[in-house]
C-alpha cells in the first residue's frame, strides 16, 4: 500500500501541473453545475407559457396543480444525470494520461525493475484517477445542490435538494461508474500510444448517459430510486470483470512484451 501511495502522490503532483486535465473539468463544472441549472430554474417561468411544455407536463405527469414545481422537479431529473459527467469524464482524462506518459517517457521498465509489485502499480494508477474523481464529483455535487437550492428558493420558496435520488447517484452510482471507467481506461491505454484516443473511453461510456437524458426528454422514461438502484447493481456486477481484465493486463511480463509502446 505504501508503494501505491508513493505513486499516487507523484501522479497527483503531475496532474496539478497538467492543464489539459484540470481545464476541461473546470469548464464542465462551470457549464453543467452552475450556468445550466441557473438558466433552467430561473428561466422556467417563460417555458411554462409555451403550450407544448404544458402538454408535455400533462402527458408525463398527468393533471397537476403546480406546473412550475413539477417542471423544476423534471429539470432536477435531468440535472441528476449531470452528476454522472464528472465520474465518467475525470478518470478517462487522468488514467490514460498517467499510463501513456509512462510509455512516452520509457519510464515503465525502470519502474518495474524496482521491488514494486504490479498490483501496487495498478492500485497507485487507479487511485490517481479515482480519488480526484471522487473529490471533484463531491465538490460538483455540493455546488450543484447550492445552485439549485438557491435558484429554486428564489423561484418557489423551497429547497428541493438533496434528495434520496441525488444521494444515490453521488455516492453509489458515481463511484461505481468511475471505477469501471478507470479500469476501462487502463485497459485501453495499454493498447494505445496516443493520449487523446485512449481518453475517448469516457466519451464512449458517456453515450448511454445522453440516451437517458434523451429518453427522459421524450417523456418515455423517468429516473427514480428503483431504476437508479437497478442501474447501480448492474454496473456493480461489471466491476469484478473489468478489474480482473485490468489486473491481467497489468502484469509485468504483459507490460513489457505485449503493450503497445512508442517506437
Amino acid at each position, binding site marked *: 500500500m505504501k508503494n501505491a501511495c508513493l505513486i499516487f502522490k507523484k501522479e497527483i503532483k503531475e496532474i496539478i501541473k497538467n492543464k489539459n486535465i484540470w481545464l476541461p473539468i473546470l469548464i464542465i463544472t462551470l457549464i453543467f453545475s452552475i450556468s445550466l441549472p441557473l438558466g433552467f430554474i430561473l428561466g422556467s417561468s417563460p417555458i411554462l407559457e409555451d403550450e407544448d411544455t404544458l402538454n408535455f407536463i400533462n402527458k408525463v405527469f398527468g393533471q397537476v396543480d403546480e406546473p412550475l414545481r413539477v417542471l423544476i422537479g423534471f429539470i432536477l431529473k435531468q440535472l441528476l444525470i449531470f452528476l454522472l459527467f464528472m465520474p465518467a469524464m475525470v478518470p478517462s482524462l487522468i488514467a490514460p494520461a498517467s499510463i501513456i506518459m509512462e510509455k512516452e517517457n520509457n519510464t515503465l521498465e525502470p519502474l518495474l*525493475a524496482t521491488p514494486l509489485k504490479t498490483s501496487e502499480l495498478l492500485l497507485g494508477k487507479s487511485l490517481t484517477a479515482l480519488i480526484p474523481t471522487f473529490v471533484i464529483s463531491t465538490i460538483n455535487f455540493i455546488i450543484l445542490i447550492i445552485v439549485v437550492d438557491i435558484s429554486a428558493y428564489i423561484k418557489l420558496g423551497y429547497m428541493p435538494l438533496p434528495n434520496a435520488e441525488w444521494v444515490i447517484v453521488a455516492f453509489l452510482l458515481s463511484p461505481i461508474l468511475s471505477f469501471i471507467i478507470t479500469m476501462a481506461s487502463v485497459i485501453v491505454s495499454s493498447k494505445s500510444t496516443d493520449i487523446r484516443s485512449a481518453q475517448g473511453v469516457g466519451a464512449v461510456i458517456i453515450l448511454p448517459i445522453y440516451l437517458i437524458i434523451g429518453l427522459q426528454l421524450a417523456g418515455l422514461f423517468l429516473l427514480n430510486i428503483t431504476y437508479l438502484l437497478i442501474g447501480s447493481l448492474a454496473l456493480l456486477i461489471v466491476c469484478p470483470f473489468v478489474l480482473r481484465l485490468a489486473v491481467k493486463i497489468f502484469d509485468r511480463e504483459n507490460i513489457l512484451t505485449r503493450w503497445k509502446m512508442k517506437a
Partner: protein
Amino acid sequence: MITVENLTRKFKDITAVENISFDIDESEIFGFLGPNGAGKTTTIRMLSTLISPDSGKITINGKDTRSHGEYIREITGLLTESPGMYEKISAYDNLKYYSSFYNIPDDRRNKNIEKYLKMFDLWERKDDLAGTYSKGMKQKLALSRALIHEPKILLLDEPTAGLDPESAHMVRNFIDSLKKEKTTVFLCTHNLEEASSLSDRVCIIKKKIIRIATLLELQNGDRGKRVEIVFRDDADKYTKLIKETSHIKNIQTDKNKAMLVIENPEISNPIILKKLVDSGAKIIYFNQIKASLEEIYLDLIRDEKGK
C-alpha cells in the same frame, strides 16, 4: 552470484535466446556481446525478473528468479537501454521517487542521491526538470538511478551510449572501480573496446552462446596469431621465402608491409626472421600482433553466420 542454466525464451514463433548457460562470480565484470537482435536485452530482462524464461533457470545470490522476484529486484540495479525519466519532474525528484521503492533508510537515500549526482556532475542542475537534460545527462541520471540503492548486482545495457568521450571514460572508470566494492556487473554493450577493457570475461551471443572466455583466452584461441613485418623495400619480394616456412596459415602484403597468420609463432618466428636476415632483407620491424576483441568478435559472428 548469477547462474543461468539452459535458458530459452521465445516471443511467439521467434526465438530470442536458446538454451544459454553461464555463471558469473561475485565482483566479476561479465561482458555480454552480440549483434542487434542477438537476445541481449531479453537476457537482461530475464535476469532482472522483468520477464520469465520459457524454460531453464536463473539463480541469483542463491535464489530462483521465478519465485524471488522482489528480493532479486531489491539487490539488483538495472540500467535500461533507454534512460527513461519523468520529464516534468526534477532530476533529484526522479531519483527520490525511484529510490523510494527500495528498502533503504531516508538519510542513506538522500546521501546516495547527492553522492551520485555529484559523481556524475549533475548536482548543480539537480533541480532542473529531467526533460531539459541532454541525452548524455539523462544517461548519467539513469546510471545514478541504477546505483542509488547500492545493488550487489548491476545489470547495464549500453552504459556509455550517448555519452561524450570524457563522460564515457568517467563511467568506465566507475564501472571498473565497482570491483573493489564487490559489485557484480553484467555489461551488455556494442562497444568492444569497452568490453575488452572492463570485462573479466566476455560472452559472445547470437541467440545461442558462441563463446565465453577471457580476452586472453580468445586471443590465444585456435584462430592463429598474427605477425606484422615492415621492410625497407617491397614486401612482395619476400613472400615466397616466408611461405616456405611451415605453420604459415596466411600471408598478405601491402607495399612494404607483410601480415602473416602463424599457427605456432614460438617455433616459426625465429626461423622466418633468420631466413629473412640471411637473404639480406632490410627489416624495419617485426611485431607479433594480438587480435583485438573486435577482430575476434567479427570472426566469431561471421563463422556463426556461415553455419
